[in-house]
């Protein structure tokens, strides 16, 4: 049984904290002799080079600091990470938010709420009138400290769409992946969100949950999982939510570390390649998303951000942001991209195929 670590790969000085090392692993071994690279695979379906479509989602990572150290975190987030977006960078982001053609603003982290300027940023960003304003909240932050207890009310005031991770409806599987006590704190936080109206049937206060598998296997059918989650959370705790997004774990960062340490890496990559779904390729999230890092650099997606693969464009930083120029680029790919094209596909908004 794996025991959850309490420090990030960075803090542990693991070689897998280095993006180059991760990319090296993903480009060698079985991908030299046994399996096709992602580029070869999408050449077969006529999708190479992968190009953006219409920009729909602006995803901003406001910092890697988090109150949790989840086993599979692709960000390698944790309390020991000090990368936090400054107010100056937030101001540059706000300028972009006021003028973007994207209909969705998606704030992520780490725990975004731990950024000292988080509330000020949300207040300003919500004035831009963007159609769907998402905050990815890990739930436990709401219970972590008194100063966060009013977050449900704060989210409600600014009509924030809350999206939260929940790996399973049972304590054992959730705590195994996210740490001891996470399940109970998450349940309490969900009750608090329900209490102010989040997740209730017919409510405009959107509360969606994200399911990602607790081990080296792919997510099951999203609709069936949603049904099971809804029944279990209602029967056991009287909790309600709107949609469940089933997300595949991508083989980078701490999940890659876990796959290698548990001798599951090759089997997992085989699973991803065998489950390749050509119809998912056209809708992968990098085709409609721009990801902004805590220090303002631009990426095709949050995963490329963690692999330090900046957009292949003249415009690489939020200070030079130009949607027309950015849209005319080739998306950078590697073998981790198989995670977004397996089965029904995977994105921050769930399945795509």
């Amino acid at each position, binding site marked *: 049984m794996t025991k959850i670590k309490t420090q990030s790969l960075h803090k542990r000085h693991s070689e897998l904290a280095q993006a180059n090392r991760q990319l090296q692993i993903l480009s060698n071994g079985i991908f030299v002799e046994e399996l096709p690279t992602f580029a070869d695979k999408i050449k077969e379906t006529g999708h190479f080079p992968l190009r953006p479509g219409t920009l729909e989602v602006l995803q901003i990572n406001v910092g890697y600091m988090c109150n949790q150290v989840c086993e599979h975190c692709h960000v390698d987030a944790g309390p020991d990470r000090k990368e936090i977006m400054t107010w100056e960078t937030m101001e540059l982001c706000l300028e972009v938010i006021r003028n973007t053609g994207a209909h969705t603003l998606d704030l992520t982290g780490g725990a975004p709420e731990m950024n000292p300027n988080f509330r000020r940023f949300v207040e300003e960003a919500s004035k831009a009138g963007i159609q769907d304003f998402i905050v990815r909240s890990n739930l436990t932050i709401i219970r972590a400290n008194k100063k966060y207890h009013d977050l449900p009310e704060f989210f409600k005031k600014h009509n924030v769409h809350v999206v939260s991770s929940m790996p*399973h409806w*049972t304590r054992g599987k959730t705590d195994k992946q996210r740490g001891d006590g996470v399940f109970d704190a998450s349940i309490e936080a969900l009750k608090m969100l329900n209490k102010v109206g989040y997740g209730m049937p017919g409510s405009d206060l959107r509360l969606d949950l994200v399911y990602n*598998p607790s081990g080296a*296997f792919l997510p*099951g059918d999203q609709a*069936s*999982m949603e049904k*099971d*989650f809804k029944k279990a959370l209602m029967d056991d705790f009287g909790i309600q939510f709107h949609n469940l997004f089933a997300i595949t774990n991508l083989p980078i960062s701490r999940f890659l570390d876990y796959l290698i340490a548990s001798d599951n890496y090759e089997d997992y990559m*085989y699973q991803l390649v065998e489950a390749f779904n050509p119809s998912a390729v056209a809708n992968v999230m990098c085709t409609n998303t721009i990801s902004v890092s805590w220090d303002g650099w631009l990426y095709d997606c949050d995963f490329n951000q963690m692999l330090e693969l900046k957009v292949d464009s003249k415009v690489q930083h939020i200070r030079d942001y130009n949607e027309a120029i950015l849209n005319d680029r080739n998306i950078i790919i590697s073998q981790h991209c198989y995670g977004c094209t397996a089965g029904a596909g995977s994105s921050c908004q769930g399945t795509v195929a």
Partner: protein
Amino acid sequence: MSYYDPKDLRKFGDITEWSEELGNKYFDYYGKVFEEGALTAREKSLIALAVAHTEQCPYCIDAYTKDSLQRGVTKEEMMEAIHVGAAIRSGATLVHGVMMMNKVNKLDG
């Protein structure tokens, strides 16, 4: 070396190479059986897991343990399913005890 190589499971589809029509018919049937129907795919996965154990098929155990996990099945549910298989299997042995008793009664009653 074991007779069973876990990597052989990846080659299961290759059986069609030496008998295409029958192989394809089998895989079509197999795929249809596991679709959602009167039983959910989750329930079918648990039945398959129990049968995998009574058949003692290592490939099937690998495949349906993973399939069960993908469908959110818990460890407790998986183990209970295996006990169902084990109970039927041991019951099938024990119920033959009646045959033995009949024979004893006839020969030596």
